[in-house]
């Protein structure tokens, strides 16, 4: 008993120190960040390299000192998030230009620059990524119990690479981050995942890798054609029509796998299901958004004619993904797998909105990406929380959880309703905008997409009934009752996402105002390029 007590006390001490450091560092950084708005410091590089330094630091901590490792990671994640707040606070919403630009010559032999910058679209993902990484650390606290050090290093590395993807303004740099992220993610799924983790990890890697390599060929062709790898300059060229189609397909092969679009989605249910909770949250929250982000950043502005030509094709694929994903959800027997397939369906909405190619559609698509990150992230967190108690994801084994874990059930309900798209939650805003945009573009597709919402409600509510209502099964009695409801760490984990659900649900203007000008600019550019071609 005494050792336990000592450990607990030591842990409290660690936590206290960590909290203090965080608050101190945070407030200075915020003050600094706001003050510094006029004289620029490399904020974006700091964001990329800080977690790298953090993971390097953790690398040198002895792997026996588990508490210290966890606390360090938490501090790094929190400081990282606070560091990213100046982005939000001093971002100029009334400019559609790239901001916080950094540009250094990196490989002079090829004329490749290390250049970073954010606009209204990417800034949201960076912030979301920061938030989700903190939550991932929290949720992994007790769940991950082997190779703890490696896990947290991987988590931080993934974070760095992910935000690097959203920041890079050089196509080569973009590719480096895009691929570099595969390594830690492969390990997270493969080492700490469920029973079929190895199969899923390899599948994830190979699917993504083949898509990325085809994109690499596209990048090389683009680079050789224009002689530059600068994203902003690449969008200014107008490419021959045939070349546009090929390049569009090359880039699509990478992005479609990541989104994932039907029919290359099959890695996702496996990866989501087998990954540890943190891995699922990152996958659902940020990683699959990189695909849609890539479509927005590369395919639409660079290959406008091809986009226009392939628009019906893309819309049809999106609607197939929406309906197919939703139907598959109905027959799932595994909690996580169900949410994974619902991701396929929801990401179908995202691509539907993006390829509607109008203001509402694209704005809705981006908003829906953020929403999906929040909602699905939260759902995976919820499933992780209950899985830790019951050690099963079989829906059939559950029942009557509501009577055992009332707070948990209420929170789950909120996220579930948000996922369905109930008005008042963020899911509604996104889906509404998308359907509006799609209706303008192609009425039939919008109608088909809207019907899938009904299937969505069906599988989600049915899931809720099976898991939370009915009679408490003996299995649940045996495994969950002893643990009781959510503890404070778990509530802290879910709370920010809960707030975000309602915040965006009631006041989407804040987020949309970031997007507004960037999307408008994107569409103006797109239309003018089409005009030039005609």
């Amino acid at each position, binding site marked *: 008993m005494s050792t336990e007590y000592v450990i607990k006390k030591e842990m409290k001490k660690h936590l206290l120190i960590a909290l203090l450091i965080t608050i101190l560092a945070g407030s200075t950084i915020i003050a600094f960040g706001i003050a510094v708005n006029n004289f620029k410091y490399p904020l974006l590089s700091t964001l990329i390299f800080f977690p790298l330094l953090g993971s390097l630091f953790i690398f040198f901590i002895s792997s026996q000192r588990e508490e210290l490792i966890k606390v360090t990671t938490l501090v790094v994640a929190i400081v990282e998030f606070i560091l990213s707040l100046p982005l939000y606070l001093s971002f100029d919403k009334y400019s559609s230009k790239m901001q916080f630009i950094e540009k250094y010559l990196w490989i002079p*032999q090829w004329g490749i620059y290390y250049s970073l910058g954010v606009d209204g679209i990417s800034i949201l993902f960076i912030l979301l990524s920061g938030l989700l990484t903190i939550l991932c650390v929290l949720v992994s606290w007790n769940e991950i119990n082997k190779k703890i050090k490696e896990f947290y290093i991987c988590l931080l590395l993934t974070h760095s690479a992910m935000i690097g993807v959203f920041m890079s303004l050089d196509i080569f740099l973009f590719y480096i981050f895009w691929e570099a992220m595969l390594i830690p993610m492969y390990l997270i799924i493969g080492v700490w995942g469920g029973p079929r983790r190895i199969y899923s990890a390899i599948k994830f890697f190979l699917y993504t890798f083949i898509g990325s390599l085809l994109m690499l060929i596209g990048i090389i062709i683009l680079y050789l054609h224009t002689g530059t790898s600068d994203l902003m300059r690449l969008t200014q060229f107008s490419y021959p029509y045939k070349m546009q189609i090929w390049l569009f397909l090359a880039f699509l092969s990478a992005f479609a796998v990541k989104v994932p679009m039907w029919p290359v989605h099959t890695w996702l249910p496996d990866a989501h299901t087998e990954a540890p909770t943190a891995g699922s949250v990152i996958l659902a929250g940020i990683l699959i958004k990189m695909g849609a982000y890539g479509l927005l950043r590369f395919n639409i502005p660079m290959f406008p004619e091809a986009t226009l030509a392939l628009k019906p094709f893309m819309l049809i694929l999106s609607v197939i993904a929406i309906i197919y994903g939703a139907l598959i959800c109905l027959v799932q027997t595994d909690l996580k797998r169900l949410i994974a397939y619902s991701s396929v369906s929801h990401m179908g909405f995202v691509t539907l909105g993006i390829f509607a190619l109008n203001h509402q559609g694209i704005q809705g698509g981006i908003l829906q990406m953020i929403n999906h990150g929040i909602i699905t992230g939260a759902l995976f967190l919820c499933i992780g929380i209950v899985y830790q108690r019951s050690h099963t994801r079989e829906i059939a084994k559950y029942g009557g959880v509501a009577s055992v874990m009332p707070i948990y059930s209420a929170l789950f309900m909120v996220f579930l309703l948000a996922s369905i798209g109930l008005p008042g939650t963020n899911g509604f805003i996104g889906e509404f905008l998308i359907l509006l945009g799609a209706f303008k573009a192609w009425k039939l597709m919008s109608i088909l997409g809207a019907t899938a919402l009904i299937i969505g409600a069906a599988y989600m509510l049915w899931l809720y009934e099976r898991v939370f209502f009915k009679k408490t099964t003996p299995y649940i009695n045996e495994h969950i009752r002893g643990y009781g409801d959510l503890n404070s760490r778990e509530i802290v984990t879910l709370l920010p996402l809960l707030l975000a659900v309602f915040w965006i649900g009631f006041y989407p203007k804040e987020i949309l105002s970031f997007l507004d000008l960037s999307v408008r600019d994107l569409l103006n550019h797109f239309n003018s390029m089409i005009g030039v071609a005609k």
Partner: protein
Amino acid sequence: MNIPQVPLNFHALIPEICLTAFASLILLLSLIRINKFLLIWSSVLFLSFLFPLIIIYEGKALGEFFLNDFSAIYLKIIIILGTILSLLLLSSYLRSRLIILKDSIALLLFASLGMMLLVSSRELISFFVSLELMSLSLYALVAIRKYDIRANEAAIKYFMLGGISTAIMLFGIALLYGATNSTEFLAIFQNLSRNPELFLTGLGLFIVGLCFKVALVPFHMWAPDVYEGAPTPVTAFISTLPKVAVLGAFGRILIEIFPNYHAQWSSFLIVLAVLTILLGNILALPQKNIKRMLAYSSIAHGGYVVLGLIVGTETGFNAVMTYMLVYALMNIGAFGMVIAFNEEEIEYYKGLNKFHPVLSFAMLIFMFSLTGVPPTAGFIVKFNIFLQAIKAGYTWLVIIAVLFTVVSAYYYLRVVMYMYMKDPIKVPESFRHRELHIVIALCAIGVLILGVLPFFYII
């Protein structure tokens, strides 16, 4: 034949002369007892002393026979770097098996001397002699463990097939001489059109001979057996540096002397490159022995390199050289890990991460680099080769290469998967040597740094 007056100018040869003297000295020293530690580190010191010498003595020697220009310097730096790393690997391996060191160090040095001369030679006979100096030292190196039956078998195989390839190449050289009446590269270049049929036959045989040395499919048959049978550090050496030297020399000859026949030799090499990439990667898939797997992987890498040669320009060749630098680092590093774990079956790599977290992390870096995933250097150089190939219009070739890169990801990642994701089936009896760890650390850090800061070495 009139013998031309050759101006004797030994300046550019000074590094090679020094190396010859030092290697002979080591052979002599085998007569007396000497501290092994001293021997190894003085060799390393001497080799690193060669870096500045090579760079300083740029220029020609013996008339046109010997040229130490930028490409040669770059290649020689790779060769010496690789020799230092292999030397350290070899010494730690042999010391743990109580085998006499001195001869093997001398052989290693003679082999690298041969390679250095090879990349500089501008004349067919000296080209051939330096190639043989390299090859003969390598045959003996493979058999350095006298009582190891597998190693002896490998040595015999290597020797026989090496002999055949030498004969073919010599025949090619003879035909080239017959067609152009000269062995000097410059003179050959000037007299190309005299007798095209004879000349093309000679060129074909010459290329076939070289392909044997580089182990391009279908001339690769010897490689897996030899790589598997040879002592691991020797495998690290022979699967890396002879490729650097031979492909380096090969590329220079093809690009500088036979540019007019680019269409002919490149179509021949395209067939070989496709076959090599295809078979190398596919045959690596089912391998259970890691040395054999790495052997097939190194065959496949030969195919990627040839893509750069097919381009047939100076920039294409530069891409080849940078590829060689990184390839040397990652391949020697990977073989270093095989020595460190002292285990050849991939099965036994299961769960290694539990026992050796840092070493398995290094292996992870090598495996990802061999696959070509950023931020490792393997990606940068592969990108460079693909860039040059697409620039020259071989997009379809690159698509094939890319698809088989995905295949290669499967077998490289299998090693990572075994190390990190499976439970151990036996506790590895690793043996720890300072030299070994230095090599692995150097290679791993090198691969990472060259991957993140490519402006150092990209030409």
